[in-house]
Structures are given as C-alpha cells and as structure tokens.
C-alpha cells in the first residue's frame, strides 16, 4: 500500500486518531508559511500556480485532520474500510428511536421558541459525541477494529447532522 501521499505524512504526524492538536496546528502553520500564495506575489506564473496548488492541498489536509469525524473517516479510508454511509443505511432500531426522540425534542423547542432548551440540547449532544469519540479512539488506535469503528462513525454522522440542525434552529430563532 502506498503510504506516501497521505495527510498524516504531509504533516509528519503518526497515523492515529488521537493526533496532538497542537502539533497539527504547528506543522500546518510551518508548511503554510512556506507555500502560501502571499509568499509568491512577486514570483513568476509557474511558481504562483504551484503555490496555489500546494496551499490548497495543505488546507485540505489540515481541515480533514482537524475535525475528529473527518479524521476518523479518513483513517478508515486509508485502512481500506470505507464508511460508505450511503450504502449502509441499516441502523439498529434502538439507535434510530433515539435519533427520533432527539429530533422531536429539537422540533418542539423550535416551535415553542425555546432558545435555552435548544442550547441545552446542543450541549447534551456535544457531550454524547465526546464520549463516542473517546470510544472511537480506542477502537481505531488500540483495538484496530475497523469494521466496528466504521459503524460508530456512521452513528456519529447522525449526531453531527443533529448538531447542525440544532444550530440552524437557533439561528432561525435569532432571525
């Protein structure tokens, strides 16, 4: 397998889920300081184009590794276990029931214009996700159980979407 072009290698970081966020930030800034288009304003067309491509690539890599969900998806992709959420829609019924309940709570709070309630829901979902990410770190970095990790990532995608919907609801109340 070709390891060479992956985002972890780009930043010189070990290929694990529990990346050191400070090290990631530091490496990102160091590399971007070398390749950013602001460094090549006075250069010729060729160098300017290369700079744009490299800076774009470094941004892409950083964004992927910065957020835990995309980092987990990317790790699974590298290990040959695609999350493939579109073709894996079957989820256990208790999980789906729970999702329904969350969503109803959001819809109710939205109709009743209860902004505080929405923000509390946001906190609760966020906490739930943090616990799940800790479990995911164990699955990916210690047990290397990729099929189970992929399933957990699919569940986290639901929660991530829920979080966005709560934010949308809050925004609509502010408008």
């Amino acid at each position, binding site marked *: 397998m070709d390891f060479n072009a992956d985002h972890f290698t780009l930043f010189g970081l070990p290929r694990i889920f529990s990346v050191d966020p400070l090290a990631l930030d530091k490496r990102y800034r160091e590399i971007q300081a070398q390749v950013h288009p602001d460094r090549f304003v006075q250069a010729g067309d060729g160098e300017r184009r290369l700079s744009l491509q490299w*800076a774009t690539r470094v941004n892409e890599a950083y964004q992927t590794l910065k957020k835990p969900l995309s980092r987990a998806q990317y790790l699974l992709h590298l290990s040959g276990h695609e999350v493939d959420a579109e073709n894996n829609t079957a989820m256990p019924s208790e999980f789906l029931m729970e999702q329904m309940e969350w969503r109803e709570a959001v819809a109710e709070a939205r109709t009743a214009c209860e902004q505080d309630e929405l923000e509390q829901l946001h906190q609760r979902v966020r906490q739930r996700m943090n616990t799940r990410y800790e479990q995911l770190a164990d699955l990916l970095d210690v047990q290397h159980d990729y099929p189970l990790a992929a399933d957990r990532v699919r569940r986290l995608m639901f929660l991530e979407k829920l979080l966005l919907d709560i934010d949308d609801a809050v925004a609509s109340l502010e408008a």
Partner: protein
Amino acid sequence: MALLQIAEPGESPAPHQQKLAVGIDLGTTNSLVATVRSGLSTVISDELGRPLLPSVVHYHADGSSEVGYEAQSRQAIDPRNVIASVKRFMGRGIRDIAHRESMPYEFEDAPGMVRLRTAAGVKSPVEISADILRTLRVRAEASLGGQLVGAVITVPAYFDDAQRQATKDAAKLAGLSVLRLLNEPTAAAIAYGLDNAAEGVYAVYDLGGGTFDISILNLSKGVFEVMSTGGDSALGGDDFDQRIFCWILEAAKLKPLSIEDARLLLTCAREAKEYLTPHGVAPITARLNSGEVVDLKLTTEIFTEISQTLVAKTIQPVKKALRDAALSVADVKGVVMVGGATRMPQIQRAVGAFFKQEPLNNLDPDKVVALGAAMQANLLAGNRAAGDDWLLLDVIPLSLGLETMGGLVEKIIPRNSTIPIARAQAFTTFRDGQTALAVHVVQGERELVSDCRSLARFELRGIPPMVAGAARIRVAFQVDADGLLAVSARETTAGVEANIVVKPSYGLSDDEIASMLKDSMAHTKDDALRRALKEAQVEAQRLIEAVQSALKSDGDLLTNEQRARIEDAIAKLQTTALGENRRHITLAMDDLEGETKEFAARRMDKSIRRAFAGKNIDELASSPDSSKSLEEPA
C-alpha cells in the same frame, strides 16, 4: 559626524530598493490610501492635508469628472450626476438595490450589473469606482514619487464573488496592479494586532458606510487566522442616515420632496448623526426649495429608538459567526471597532453589552483598514526583512454550490473554509442520451437556487450519449487567495472539458473592460499607452529580480546548462525592457517564464522539504493525493 540626508519635500525618502506599494480602503462613504514609510504605516493625505477622499464622483456633460470633497459639495445642486455610495451597486443587479426609488439616480437595467445614466454617459459601478481608485493612485504616485508596483485593495469580508470580481476589475481599470484583495476586518486585525502585539481570539466589528462585517480571528505568533466571518453587505451608516431622514419627514410633516430637497435632507441627516455623537443633541434646520422650513432637534434618545432594529440587525451575524467558530462570548479577548459608524454611542453600548466588555477604540476607526492594508502591501511587495513577517489565513464568507435538479443547491465549498481551497464533486446526466450539461454556479446559504446569488452559468457539451446516470461529470471549484472562484467541469470517460473563471452573470467581460479603458483614456490626462509600457517594464523588472534572487538562493538545483539558458533569457528580457515595444517585452517575459518552469517546481519541492525538516518526502512531493486531486485553474 555623519550628516543625515533629508529628502526634498514630496520626494521619496525611501531607499531606492524599497518597492512602492499601497493599501487602499475603497469605502462606501470615504476612501483612503496608505503606505509604509520608514517602517510606519501612514495615510497619504491630499495636497490640502486631508486624509479622506469622499467616495463621491461628479460627472459633467463634456465627459470630465471630479472625485471627492468638491463632488460631495455639489450633491444637492446636481443630484443626478453626483454619484455617492457606489460601492452599494458593485456586482449588483437592479433588483438587488434597496431604497432604489428614494435615490436620485437614473438606473438602467443591464445584464449582470446595474448601470447609471449620467451627463457623461451611462456608467457602470466598476467605472465609477475606478474613477475613485484612479484619484487615489495619482495621489499616492505624486506623494511617493514613482509608479506603484501594486496595491492591496480591501473589500468587505461579506462581499460575494461578484462584488469581489467587480472590485478587482475597477482596480485594473484604474491602472492598479492588485497584489491582493484583502478583507476589511482582516486588514484592521493586522493593524491592531501588530501595533499591540495581540495574542488570542479577537472579534472585529466593522460597520462601514454601507456594509457590515464581523470576523472572529485567532492571533498567535505572527499568524492571523480567521476562524469565521459574517455580516450584511447592505447594512451600514447610510441606513442610519436613512432612518433620520424618515424621522425628519414625519416629524416635520413634509409634502413629497423633489430630488434636490431629498438630497439636501439626507445630507442634513448625515450631519446630524455625526454631530450627535459628541454633543447629545443635534439641531436640524433647512429651508427647502419648496419653501417649507425644517427646524427640529434630534436627541440621542430619539436616534437610539429609531435605529434600534438596525443595531439589532448587526448582533445577529455576530452570534452566527461565534457559533460557526465554535466559540462563546467568554472566549473573546478583545473587540476591535472599525468603521466611522461605530462611533455612534448606541453601537458602542450594544457591542459592549453583547461581548460583556468595553470595545477597543484605540485606533482611528476610519483609518485602521487602510493602515492594515498598507502593511500587507508592504509585506507582499517583499519590503519586509526576514523574520519580520506574518502569515494570513482567511476564509470565504459564503458557501459555493451548484444547481441540481429541482432548483436545489448542492453545496461544494462551505462558508468559512480557509482559502485557497479546492473541491470537486461528481455529477451525472438526467436523461438517456443527454449530450450537454448546464452548470449553474451559485453562492449563498439557502437551499433553493432562487434564494442564492447566481454567479455564472456555463455548458459542458460533447458528452457521449449514454443512459441516464451513466456519465460521470466532475465539477471542480478552486477559490484563490483573493477569494475568487474558478470552475471547471470534465466528463471523465470521454475527457470533454469546459473551464471558466466565474464572471459572466455579474461581472464584466474582458471586452467591456477594454472598451471602458479606451473611454477613460479620452477623459483623463493619463497617457494610457505610455503607462502600459511603463507597467510592462515594471513587471519585467519584477520578474527578473524574482528569478535572480531564486538563482542566488537555489542555483544549486540547476545544471550548468539550465542555468545558462535562464541567464540568457534574463539578459534578453533586460535588453528588451529597455526598449519601447510592449509586446516584445511580454514575449520575452513568456520566454523567461518558460525557461524557469522546471526550476519553479524544484524550488517549491525544496520549500516544502524545508518545512518537513528532513522527513521522507521525496515520493510525497511527486505524487499528490489521488482522492482530492487538483484541477488547474484556467
């Protein structure tokens, strides 16, 4: 004892290797130009010592025009031909312009951008802005004593692609080489951050004459990282004037006004607003052409009440920006206030109450954007010493997407993505045998195409006939460091390609720009041909210097033969640049570019390797990520 050298007044005191670069704040109400002199960023004033240039242009029947205070003083006399706040029309269609009926201008609906009918002919907002920019360029060149290598032009962070493109076009038309389009709040953060050695999360609240921006930045060790931005590109101090104007109409029970009287009262409203801040009460007296007399007193209480909804309208994007940055009020270390409109006490109070801290007012809110832009221009022009520099990481303010079946938007690049950024997405055909595909690029957050801004439409033709859903069309978006988008589409099985730089719907075509350039030549004393030659010579010099410095630092990457070829191309360009033939200069530049292409790639590899500190990256640099490969912009 060594004698100090003192330059003659008006002559540049800078050493000759200093490249002349400026920052320009092209504002709704006022514009400014600034530069870095002896390490200090300073605003360049006009010959009367006035730093601001009112963004007002007066057009005359003979085709001539004036920009600034003189034009501003004619607003009530010749309202149709004195154009103010043109920034509000940049990149906008006629239907986008609010309060159109209460403006004294004659609008013309044109494909893409609205036009204004003046005594000097029909003008596009780009041309009017170019007249303002040209005045600033001439002012700067006179003061600095030479031709500028380039300018950083600021735009509201919340400007969309059409508005940014229009600004860049205006600069081109004004004979300026744009080093970078820089977001106004980011420019302010540079000026504030460098002056105060600030570290941590800062909010920049920027309420200008016609636009509102909020940016949340993380400042740390020479890195300015924008975490999120939000705003309203049609909300500013002008709207507060409008509220006072409406209050005057009601309080004085006036009959419908002539456009001259309306202009007069709008000026009274603006003056009252400015007088109110330090005085608490502002008298408003005017004798109208209709014979009616206005004699009112505006108090801070009344003003606060009638402008309450406007103030609230600025807080909403602030909340959204914080949420997008996943931060809360407690995380914000300081709030930098930018824009003349932030002097209003009700704004200060509302921002202070929201952030639970006193806003920072230690920089002149009118000048801070231009000062920051000048610092960035100085950096980009290469005038900074090594070590004394910083890195700017900015974002796009609005999501970019494509129209899919049913008038829905498929988002390709989400708002607040760090630029430059590229994303590609695969699409397919809807009908059996479909051979063409319409690509409609939109910008905005809403789900329906009709609620977003249409940026461009283009067609990909020549798709081989297949059953519906079989074709794979890869549409790639690339946003550059100016926040401008380029889109390309490719059918992957047959390799049919269509490339565009997003422009058509709201921008100007290159032909339009060329004809505007010709028009403007007729009415300015500028010798455009002479200027174009001079520009080519400056460009050639820039390229030569860049290649020479590259040879000096990385010459070891080349074989003797390669080096000789490059040096030969440099010598040829040097000779050509001494001549008067602009086309020959351009060709010689192309030759040098061609000879250094391979060199450029090797240098970039070396830079990255340096950042890697000796990691195993030889293979890495030559095999870019296959899952997200980059499309080269057209």
